[in-house]
């Protein structure tokens, strides 16, 4: 579904991506992890076609999105949903108007049908009753959920989540991860989750891509990743989890999914 080939990107002479190669199968959800400034969000924006690589390619269904212009790019983006770190809700619109916006602008669905779909989507993210509120009147967790509803309302085939739990309290963060899991089971999109939520995110993803020094240092299932012998991975896990032995007993499994069993 998505294939990234030898992707390079520099900013003002500073190389951020130094040859990323990655493949994501249809219906698969992967976690993109790594230290701050390793280029996770930059890679995500390349997948979305928001940035152009210095060299290398991003292929979606075999088509190089770097070569897409105008109508083709629009067509690709109509298949894509993106959950921004800050939600990126339109602050002059209510929650309802935000979620309805892509349907009103991109489809020819009638107002009644749009209302039904928006209310259904808001109910999916547990936001029923908040449709008339403005983004500034709701909490950070609600903003994330409203943004999730907006990105899912057009039934995208590919979902990109840029740090969906950053800035949220642990309970709300966990609720968002559970929601992503539930929605994935319902809609079966292909997904990429950029996150620092380790190890909790491992319960909702099929594979983990670890970025280090601008390349993918490890790409494995969560269980393989946890028991990786790669020194960088061991050091990262030790630093993130605050435990010296990542090969120790099973990690906390708050989401309750059995995805790590793979």
């Amino acid at each position, binding site marked *: 579904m998505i294939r990234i080939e030898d992707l390079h990107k520099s900013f003002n002479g500073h190389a951020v991506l130094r040859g990323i190669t990655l493949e994501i199968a249809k219906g698969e959800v992967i976690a993109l992890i790594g230290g701050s400034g390793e280029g996770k969000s930059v890679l995500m924006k390349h997948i*979305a076609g*928001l940035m152009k690589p210095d060299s290398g390619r991003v292929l979606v269904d075999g088509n190089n999105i770097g070569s897409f212009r105008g109508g083709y*790019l*629009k*067509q690709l*983006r*109509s298949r*894509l949903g*993106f959950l*921004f*770190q*800050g939600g*990126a*809700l*339109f*602050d002059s619109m209510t929650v309802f108007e935000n979620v309805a*916006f*892509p349907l009103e*602008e*991109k489809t020819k669905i009638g107002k009644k049908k749009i209302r039904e779909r928006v209310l259904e989507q808001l109910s999916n993210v547990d936001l029923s009753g908040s449709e008339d509120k403005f983004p500034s009147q709701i909490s950070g967790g609600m903003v994330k959920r409203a943004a999730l509803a907006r990105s899912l309302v*057009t039934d995208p085939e590919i979902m990109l989540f840029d740090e969906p739990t950053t800035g949220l309290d642990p309970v709300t963060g966990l609720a968002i991860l559970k929601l992503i899991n539930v929605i994935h089971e319902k809609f079966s999109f292909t997904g990429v989750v950029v996150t620092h939520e380790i190890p909790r995110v491992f319960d909702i993803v099929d594979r983990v891509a670890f970025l280090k020094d601008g390349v993918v240092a490890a790409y494995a299932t969560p269980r393989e990743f946890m028991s990786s012998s790669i020194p960088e991975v061991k050091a990262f896990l030790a630093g993130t989890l605050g435990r010296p032995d990542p090969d120790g007993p099973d990690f906390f499994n708050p989401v309750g999914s059995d995805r790590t069993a793979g």
Partner: protein
Amino acid sequence: MELIRRLGAVVLLHVSRMGVMGLFLIKAFFYAVVPPIKWRRLLKQISFIGFQSTVVILLTSCFTGMVLGFQGYYNLSRVGSEAFLGAMVGLSLVKELGPVLTALMVTGRAGSAITAEIGIMRITEQIDAMELMGLNTYRYLVVPNLLAGIISLPLLTAIFDVVGIFGGYLIGVKLLGVGVGSYFGVMSTYIGMKDVLEGLYKAVSFGILINWVCCFKGYYTSIFTGFGAEGVSKATTQAVVLSSVLVLIWDYFMTGLLY
């Protein structure tokens, strides 16, 4: 040698930015003439740029006309020509002060807000979100402002002219004793349709110029002026300063062209 290299780099940077700015305007015009137009957004911006600027325009135009009444009367009376006050006030307003001061007021009131709004949308990734929805951001953010400017500025200028002439009338006729027939008589003798149109052409061009600069500065906030609140603040300041300066420079060239 190093100095020349740095100077060259600065020149190249500014030339390339001017190129980006030029392309921005071309794209905006292209999407302004190729449907669909976002009518609801256009009406909202006409209300914001035009209707909501009316009070400011009424105040500035009235006082500008009154000042012209005083200054015109005292200066013309030195050469015994106070009877020409109406023509002087009218011509000054219709050809120069009306369009220029209207443009400067709109820049300060609406232009700064446009830059800030688009700039905040840029730094909070709302523009990226729109692009990812497959929507044309020019149609939503730039074209309505550009068209609203083209429509609103001449109308505001016309209001400015009329109220300014009335302000001059209050001082010249009611306070200083110039005959009402003389005030409006010389005005209609010396001001032709060409003069009025000259002012309105200027107003249209200022409407384009202000919205071009203000939208551009907001749209490219994080790229040209830095990130976060500081970036938006810088962009807004630059937009107001650049628009105001360009209005005055462009006014000179328009006057030369239309003379």
